[in-house]
């Protein structure tokens, strides 16, 4: 039962109060997208063994979305942050890099 701290309301909530909705920072492909871009947007997802950036929603709480950086193998949570960013905050990326020097870095 993971627990994550919602950056919107500050509550550390159980996994059962939250809903995970997969990879974060997927840019929407608009009407101009070619077929490959559309396929990438709709279907193609990272599936890393290690550091991953995910979208979560505090469903049975404040109802707000946020993002979390998490290790998919150890379940270590590096941090949670606002969903209203196009890339993870620099400070968080630095923190992860420090803990995991071998990490290749954030890939959009």
């Amino acid at each position, binding site marked *: *039962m993971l*627990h994550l701290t919602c950056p919107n309301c500050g509550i550390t909530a*159980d996994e059962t109060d939250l809903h995970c909705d997969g990879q974060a920072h997927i840019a929407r492909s608009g009407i101009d997208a070619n077929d490959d871009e559309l396929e990438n947007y709709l279907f193609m997802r990272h599936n890393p063994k290690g550091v991953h950036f995910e979208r979560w929603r505090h469903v049975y709480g404040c109802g707000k979305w946020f993002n979390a950086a998490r290790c998919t193998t*150890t379940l270590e949570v590096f941090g949670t942050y606002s969903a*209203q960013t196009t890339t993870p905050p620099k400070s968080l990326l630095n923190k992860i890099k420090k803990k995991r020097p071998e990490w290749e870095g954030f890939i959009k």
Partner: protein
Amino acid sequence: MSTRLSKGGRLINRSKPVEFSFDGKRLNGYEGDTLASALLANNQTLVGRSFKYHRPRGIVASGPEEPNALVGLGKGDKFEPNQRATTTELFDGLHSNSQNAWPSLEFDIGGVNRIMSRVFPAGFYYKTFIFPRFAWKHIFEPIIRKAAGLGAAPTEKDADKYEYFYAHVDVLIIGGGTSGLAAALEVGRSGAKVLVLEQKNTWGGRAPVDGVFIDNQISEEWIDDAITELQSMPNVTLKNRTMGAGVYDHGWATGYESITDHMPGKKGPRQRLWRIRAKRILTTTGAIERPLSFAGNDLPGVMLAGSVRDYLVDFGTSCGDIMVLATNNDDAYRTAIKQSEVGLKVAAILDARTSVTGELPNKAREMGIRVETGMAISKVKGSKSVSGVSICLQAGEGVPLEEIKCDVVAMSGGWSPIVHLWSHCGGKLNWDAENAMFRPDPERPPLGDDGSGFVAVGGTANGYMIANEAMQDAISQGKLVAKQVGYKPVNSKSSIVNVENESPIEQIWQMPQGMSVKLQAKTFLDYQNDVKVSDVRLAAREGYESVEHTKRYTTLGMATDQGKLSNINGLAILADSLKAEIPNVGTTTFRPPYHPISMGSIAGDARGELFKPIRKSPIHNWIEENGGFFEPVADWRRPYCYQKNNETVKDSVQREILNTRSNVGLLDASTLGKIIVKGSDAGKFLDMIYTNLMSNLKVGHCRYGLMCTENGFLSDDGVVARLDENTFLCHTTSGGSDRIHAWMEEWLQTEWWDWKVYTANVTEQYAQIAVVGPNARKLLEKLGGMDVSKEALPFMRFSEGTIGGIRARPFRISFSGELSYEIAVPASDGQAFWDMCIEAGKEFGIQPYGTECLHVMRAEKGFIMIGDETDGTVIPQDLNMEWALSKKKEDFLGKRAHLRSHMSDPSRWKLVGLKTVDPNVVIPDGAYATDGTIRENGVKNMIGRVTSTYFSPTLNRSIAMGLVKFGPNRMGEIIDFPTLEGKIIKAEICNQVFLDPEGERQNV
């Protein structure tokens, strides 16, 4: 024979006799007994039949690791199968039955399986599945199903109550033995909040049984002092009868508390599931003794040495007058010494080790006990109970040297630390060859959210088998976790345990080491699943190298005890067969719960009405009282129809349709989703959410709209009303309100977060009542209060005012094709408004109508229904709804996806109407249309399917809608719908609007 001794038994109260029954026999025990100790005291050594071979089985252990003594407890709605006699506290009137025996435990016909055991080898099920196929279904399965198995499932609904309990602590300590108590004292004294769980009703674990001294006190006194001190600390909670069941991610754990199991009839829940979040978890769960693998080791009377000692000390119960002890370690000698001390006989101690010089063996020798070194049991004698053993050299192949009479065999293959809770969440183990055990690797703990280990292990569970080493380890682990959760341990004198020195154990995995194949087939590893040494060796010969595969092939460790006794022995045999090292073979995965917990405790309060609470509209109770025939619609209950007198459901639906079409009907539409979208960018936002253009909707007007996913598929529909310049009210389907609200929020929060838009789901704030039919206006005019004329309130408009004195917002929208007003009133006024309509509508022939009438009327008009005409793969174009796809808008959700080639493929199945050639025949729901050709795979080629199909009383004929390949180009053609019965229904492709295509009925 086993019996109650005249003295002793530290846990029983001889002044409180208790009566209970086993297989109908009335037996006596004492308060403080377990069912197992009481059965042994009554010489009931045979307690069950084995799972596969129906071999007679007796009690082996004294705790939750017991594999054999599973009984059915209680009667009727209190019956529960597969309960362990060793963990069941005895109470007056306890009713128990043996399992898996027919016609009786003593004479069991299924024992024929035992004779057949040669045809049930390892992997029997898999081998039988393969060939011949028919044999499995028709011959083997019926026989096996009858013969193999454990207890029967209860037939009545569980009468007991269960509940959840939540706890948040700094430190959770699991296991209330001396290690757990010592650690708890350290954590408690530091000031951290600590919860201590103990599965038994007593504290202190097995220390009193071993007779150790702690700080020069007898251990019981030390335990009492520890409990007193812990109870005085406000930051410490002690819970006995509560098993630490599972450890999960990020410091979450479950505890399984037994509240009234031992006090039936007492008020309150039977069990409680603790849901615990702890910063650190310290497990001090002790160890489990391993059986030795010798032929006949499953006969009733062959028991674990430590358990025999438990029964003597804790319950004053002897397991037999004459004992033979087989061992590979010093600890087991304590059992022989105890047996001797209480005046019973020890015929021999067979120690597989060649050199035995420890303090305990020497003490046994001094007491005159015969100690044989380098010796083993060749075979246990007896049929339903032990009558003796033949002994042999451990180094040999099992040639019997001598027969020794005895009625109990105590065995000890050493102890395995209980590492389950450490391992549940990923803690890794190391093989300690010197001590012959897997122990936790402190370098590889389960990790918490901060990346550091959140589980620690202390004492015997951590691999310290000498009592004082265990104590010192527990104390240091307690101090460590206190520090880890931010508290400072208090300096105090560490407790010291005085105990005999023990010389090293020797790894003995089969007895004798060169045992013949014949003996292997009588040597059991897993008692509960009847897995023998020969089965594991066969698996190895057949190529099973992975312990996980061998486990599944042989079913070793897959019974309800999860291999607590058998796993280490089994994998040692596997390693030996594969000529591999034990750590290279590895262990199987430990999964929660540690010990089976009841389904009731997992469900807690979530049963019956509380399993999934239903949503009720403001009119719900009236509907229930007035013949409403409910059907589930999302979490709501809506009336399918209102049944009058002796009407059938079908009659009711037809009456409601005809009445609504000719007079006036009343529909509770309160369940419709209602979402307010407000803000200066609300129009721009809805232009993205809907396929239609919404931003140009005039205030006071309504517009029907469609929503698609980004994949282009239809997701929801409904009418949007513009309340003012910046405010829209979006109606969704009844099932879609929460989903669509969440959908809107997702886009606003994660994609267009700079847009100035708020949303609010106001579904339950309004009752929405549809007044439908030719007399609808007359009724509203009679109620009075606002102008509802065609001129003041035309079709697809709404207005606000009062009707009959109630604040109302009537929408001129129609899902039936009739003159129709959907009137939103405050939810609290919903019932009053409904009553008023029913009362005032009498003269106009008003009748309430249900969802089926709604469905048929909308189908007569050719209106689509989300979930009928759509199934997640249908796009608006399939439903000929291009008119709802705005061409003016640059973009909307799903627009780009619609441009993909297969979305514009002309051969997509498209919506049409269907008229059966025989007007009285209704096409079955979900029927497929075929063109008479057969596909390569042998199935009929399908060219379409029915999406809605009804008998229309208005048109007095069957009508349907469906998606058909090239459908709109095939008007007038007749196509085939084969039925499940093998008939073919013929239907003509037609326009989907069956009634009033010009809209003359609604535009009045």
